[in-house]
């Protein structure tokens, strides 16, 4: 298998996990599976939300961490897929997951393909601004028109059904079943993302991130690589948005807004950009922190803003950096990773 061959060599895109990290991973997976049997349903729903935001952030990290492209429109793909579910769900009956999920994800992928095709013509600050603007375009599409209830949003009265003919394997209306489906989807997405970044495609993408000119002169089709990554990433964000809309039973234009896109970026940086599952850890940390803050103070946004500012200056490597500071450099082999390289200065010179 290509993945294991690459992992055996030292030039793997992903950092090699230490024994401690491997042990922790097993523990986390065990807790995640046991959670619905141990915790009250409020926490199961909270965990579902964290998993879905984490999935969107992992999707975003494919372009930010592995592609080196700061996209500010991923909430648009997330929300767009949610809206597709809202628009295709009949008022009194559930929609079929087998029909609506591919439709929603396909729509998100198409939007990502179109936006990516235009945005990837630009670089650096331009790319950030253009993706931000196109994301807002989709936001206004739902905010200003009457599609999907305009600025008020729309309700989804029933969760999608997974029935195949008359066979009903699961009832997604039950919070625990829904949680397990989401857990499974997130697990599959992690496997897909790992396979992607360890494939020749992933290596070429990372090469274009590290030195675009060199990658180009070696004959890599940089534009096409990035567009592929952007489209896959948008589609995966769409998967997260589809299930998020199903969970809340509600969609609103804010789901596509750039505040969520920025929040996803914070999660990506917090969790660390060089691993596939880092953003998931970031989502757990940030949303957990937010939950605690909200119960402590009315001005939680002020504190969160200050924490983000501190993150930028004190922990540019995210929680991974914090872990290696606490546990010593042995916990993570490539601790001295330049998480946020000085790309700005280099390109200006």
């Amino acid at each position: 298998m290509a993945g294991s061959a690459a992992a055996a060599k030292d030039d793997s895109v992903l950092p090699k996990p230490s024994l401690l990290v491997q042990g922790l991973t097993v523990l986390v997976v065990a807790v995640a599976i046991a959670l619905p049997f141990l915790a009250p349903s409020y926490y199961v729903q909270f965990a579902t939300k964290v998993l879905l935001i984490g999935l969107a952030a992992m999707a975003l990290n494919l372009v930010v961490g592995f592609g080196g492209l700061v996209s500010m429109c991923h909430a648009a793909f997330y929300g767009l897929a949610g809206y597709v579910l809202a628009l295709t769900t009949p008022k009194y009956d559930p929609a079929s997951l087998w029909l609506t999920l591919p439709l929603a994800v396909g729509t998100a992928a198409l939007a990502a393909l179109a936006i990516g095709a235009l945005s990837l013509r630009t670089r650096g600050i331009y790319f950030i601004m253009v993706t931000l603007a196109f994301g807002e375009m989709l936001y206004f599409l739902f905010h200003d028109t009457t599609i999907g209830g305009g600025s008020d949003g729309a309700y989804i009265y029933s969760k999608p059904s997974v029935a195949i003919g008359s066979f009903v394997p699961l009832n997604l209306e039950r919070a625990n079943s829904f949680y397990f489906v989401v857990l499974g989807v997130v697990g599959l997405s992690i496997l897909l993302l790992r396979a992607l970044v360890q494939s020749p495609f992933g290596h070429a993408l990372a090469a274009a991130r590290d030195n675009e000119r060199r990658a180009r002169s070696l004959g890599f089709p940089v534009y096409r690589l990035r567009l592929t990554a952007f489209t896959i990433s948008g589609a995966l964000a769409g998967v997260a948005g589809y299930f998020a809309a199903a969970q809340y039973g509600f969609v609103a234009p804010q789901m596509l807004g750039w505040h969520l896109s920025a929040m996803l970026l914070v999660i990506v940086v917090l969790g660390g950009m060089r691993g596939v599952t880092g953003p998931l850890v970031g989502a757990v940390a940030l949303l957990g922190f937010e939950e605690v803050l909200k119960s402590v103070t009315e001005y939680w946004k002020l504190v969160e803003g200050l924490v983000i500012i501190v993150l930028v200056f004190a922990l540019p490597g995210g929680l991974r950096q914090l872990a290696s500071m606490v546990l010593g450099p042995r916990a993570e082999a490539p601790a001295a990773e330049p998480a946020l390289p000085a790309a700005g200065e280099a390109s200006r010179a």
Partner: protein
Amino acid sequence: MDLLTFGVQLLNGVQYGLVLFLVASGLTLVFGILGVINLAHGAFYMLGAYLAYWIAKYTGSFWIALVGGVGISFLAGMLLENIFVRRLYGRDHLAQVLLSFGLILVIDEIRQIAFGKDVHSVAPPAFLQGSIQLTDVLSYPVYRLAICVFCLIVAAAIFYVIRQTRIGMIVRAGAENRQMTRALGIPFDKVNRYVFAVGIALAALGGIVIAPISTVFPGMGDHMLILSFVVVVLGGIGSVAGAAVGALMIGLTDTFGKVFFPTFSSFSIYLLMALVLLWRPNGILGQREV
């Protein structure tokens, strides 16, 4: 649509474009000269409008509000540059995005604590309150005309400073080649601080002059931020002349879009941006890759 209505809409579009230019020129200066992407620009536009409301409420004078709002924002810009922004000059754009997003959350919450979340209005100066009667049913507010004149004066001042003064020369040199400018012993870092503060002050100024004709509300900065981004993308990063061209294009597109196809007027702006990107990825007057 008869010629007079067309003229009035044209004037509205130009006036909107000029205010957009004020805000976007601040953004493009900070981009072009400091190489910093500032998402909090819209937050200062909002803060400017709230400051104007607050100062006008206690002093009763729009002019004190104008000067006070711009002054406070300028000082805030100096302070922010000194504490945070200057540490990010060499760093990745992602760090700048995160810092300014953190600032937005902080500024929003400070606004919430200081001014609440109510919608307010600001009265224009007394002698600008009337309107010019064009026909029996059509009139044009004097204040809107005053905005046009005022914005043109500010625009002329910006162009004069950049093209004709020594400070402008340093700014242009720094935008061209930062390391060389520093190596020549030119006090570029000090100028940086002023550029950032002026950028912030311009955003606040935009918010203040728009306050009497629109309402002052918490989310007003978000929309303006995105519009300014589109203006800068259209015009080319760092180009003040490009910002002027882009701002007028957006002002006119938005105004006439609202007249002809109301629900899709926001959409038409982004369509325009997509077309310009296909034609010139670096903006109409942009030359450099940033």
